[in-house]
């Protein structure tokens, strides 16, 4: 895999993590649509996917995400409401982005008609002109944006989305924010010096500059001081650095977002431009200082004040000056599997060594054998612990399932979780997904009633579905509980007799009767739905859990 491919892969992984965040924010928004933190979280996830997608050549992802991001920017600025329809559409868009990422990975195909349908629906919901799924692409349309072009874009969007004209200044950000909401445009002085590995990491400084231009009016000065003689020039390294003045309504954090994937491989300083720094921009080219003065060409660190500020937060950061304090690293799962396999082989060899040492009555060999045994045990424990993951991600994944099923079944369901920090081996986590999904689907389809039925039964219209995990001795106890109508004991018993699973005379404990629902093909459902009812799911649950050397217990009482 080439270096660029590796970083494209890194983008894929990062983008999928952002999609998880986006999904969590959208699902939480469906409960509290006015929460600005959640809206901001959704917007930031979309913004990052768009920006980094553009940077790593995922233009279709960036173009599509741009439109959804624009809608959430309107929500962020109070010009649009996060209605259930918009949230559901954003969830569909999220699925489509996943499909596009999968397609780029050579897995499956992202149907372009889905993209068009989502964007057409988005147009209906936001009242914006119909965006073309391919054009305009967020970066390509603004290869050389002008202040006027930006102003026009902003203006038309504000008019169509709000029905009122909201003027913006020339040179302000090419998005939909307004002065009254975000304040006047400000000049920012940005010093950007790519590090030695920036290009090798797959980043493209020109795309970063284009992204900055999307935020507002950009004046730049490229410094060529560091470009060596051509014979000594490393062609894979960027020697050019830039001093920039950006006039924008964007905040320092939003500007920093542009550099989110390269911050660790560049020197970057962003600070409000002081009058002396702005002054050269205003003068004409003829009046510009001679190159020898290098007012714009010099590095920010040449100036004592800048040198001081560069190393101080919040506006400045010098990646090279700070120690590598990453608290975690990303390791491909197959490497962990290989590590565990090797440790397994080591344990076998260590056992043989122990046997040989025991038979030789050699105190030195016995001592070495004991030391190897101790280290092997520690290594085994350590390598196994590396594979332990909290079950949180699995639990969170089901929020979407519950949301979608509740919508499809016209039921009101609230998912709560407990013990999400409980750790299990990665393999177990991977294999728990299907059984838990089947349990949740059955619970929502058969156990939980409609809101009307619940009201009639004197219950809260919104049902509770509770997922929990906790350690129980050497095992982990995972439970799925709901406050629905419960399992009909007699219906299970009579259905089991019909299927010949039990005889009419059989005396079964309650738990044994409930366990019958785990039999292959068993279902008490009177009709088969899209969700469940074929009697396949619970059998799958039992087999999968048993494959993990686990077992299932079922308890129920009429509710």
């Amino acid at each position, binding site marked *: 895999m080439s270096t660029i491919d590796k970083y494209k892969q890194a983008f894929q992984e990062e983008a999928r993590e952002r999609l998880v965040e986006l999904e969590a924010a959208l699902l939480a928004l469906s409960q509290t649509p006015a929460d600005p933190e959640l809206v901001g979280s959704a917007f930031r996830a979309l913004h990052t996917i768009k920006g980094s997608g553009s940077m790593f050549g995922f233009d279709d992802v960036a173009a599509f995400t741009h439109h959804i991001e624009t809608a959430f920017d309107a929500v962020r600025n109070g010009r649009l409401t996060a209605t259930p329809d918009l949230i559901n559409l954003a969830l569909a868009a999220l699925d489509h982005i996943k499909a596009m990422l999968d397609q780029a990975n050579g897995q499956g195909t992202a149907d372009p008609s889905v993209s068009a349908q989502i964007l057409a629906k988005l147009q209906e919901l936001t009242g914006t002109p119909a965006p073309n799924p391919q054009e305009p692409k967020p970066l390509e349309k603004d*290869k*050389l*944006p*002008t*202040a006027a072009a930006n102003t026009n874009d902003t203006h038309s969007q504000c008019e169509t989305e709000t029905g009122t004209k909201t003027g913006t200044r020339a*040179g302000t950000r090419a998005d939909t924010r307004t002065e009254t909401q975000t304040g006047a445009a400000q000049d920012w002085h940005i010093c950007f010096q790519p590090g030695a590995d920036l*290009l*090798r990491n797959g980043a*493209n*400084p*020109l795309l970063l*500059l*284009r992204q900055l*231009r999307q935020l507002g*009016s*950009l*004046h*730049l*000065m*490229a*410094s*060529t*001081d560091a*470009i*060596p*003689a*051509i*014979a000594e*020039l490393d*062609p*894979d390294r*960027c*020697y*050019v650095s*830039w001093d920039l003045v950006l006039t924008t309504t964007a905040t320092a954090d939003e500007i920093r977002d542009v550099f989110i994937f390269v911050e660790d491989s560049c020197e970057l300083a962003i600070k409000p431009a002081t009058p002396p720094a702005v002054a050269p*921009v205003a003068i004409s*080219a003829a009046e*510009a200082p001679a*190159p*020898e003065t*290098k007012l*714009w*060409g010099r590095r920010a660190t040449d100036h004592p004040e800048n040198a001081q500020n560069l190393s101080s937060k919040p506006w400045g950061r010098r990646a090279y000056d700070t120690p590598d304090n990453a608290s975690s690293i990303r390791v491909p799962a197959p490497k962990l599997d290989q590590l565990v396999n090797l440790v397994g082989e080591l344990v076998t060899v260590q056992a043989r060594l122990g046997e040989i040492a025991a038979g030789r009555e050699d105190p030195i060999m016995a001592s070495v054998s004991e030391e190897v045994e101790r280290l092997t045990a520690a290594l085994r424990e350590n390598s196994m612990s590396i594979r332990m993951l909290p079950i949180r991600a699995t639990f969170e994944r089901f929020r979407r399932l519950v949301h979608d099923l509740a919508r499809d079944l016209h039921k009101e369901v609230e998912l709560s979780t407990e013990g999400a920090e409980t750790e299990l081996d990665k393999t177990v986590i991977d294999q728990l997904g299907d059984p838990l999904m089947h349990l949740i689907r059955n619970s929502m389809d058969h156990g939980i009633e409609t809101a009307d039925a619940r009201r009639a039964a004197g219950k809260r219209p919104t049902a509770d579905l509770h997922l929990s995990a906790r350690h129980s001795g050497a095992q982990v106890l995972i439970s799925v509980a709901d406050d629905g109508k419960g399992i009909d004991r007699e219906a299970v018993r009579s259905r089991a007799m019909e299927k010949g699973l039990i005889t009419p005379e059989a005396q079964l404990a309650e738990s044994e009767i409930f366990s019958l629902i785990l039999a292959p093909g068993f279902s008490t459902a009177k009709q088969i739905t899209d969700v469940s009812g074929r009697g396949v799911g619970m059998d799958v649950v039992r087999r999968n859990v048993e494959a993990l050397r686990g077992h299932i217990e079922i308890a129920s009482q009429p509710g």
Partner: protein
Amino acid sequence: MPITLDRNHASCVVRLEGEIDICCAAELKQALLDALASGTGLEIDPSHATTVDITVIQLLWAAHREAGKKGVAFTFVTPTPESMNAAMREAGFEKLSAAAGPDQASQVPALSSSCKSEPA
């Protein structure tokens, strides 16, 4: 081949074709070095280049500076593609871009340590 070097008695022509980026930067560097070593004028023909990145721009800049030191001509075959002009303008290499423009004399202006670009 995205990069080819043609030698004739008066100059060496480095032709760029298609996407010229970091993937072929080493090849471009060698072509430029070979052309400069010939002692004749150096002509860059980017008419069939579709995209260029910063690695190309800084190599052309370094070659142009080297040509100035050696006293040999450094010229662009015009017209240069707009995509190339745009990339140079976006990167702040206005002078190199201006030299590459169709209405400009092909000789690159005097060197400076920095280039300035402002919004259109």
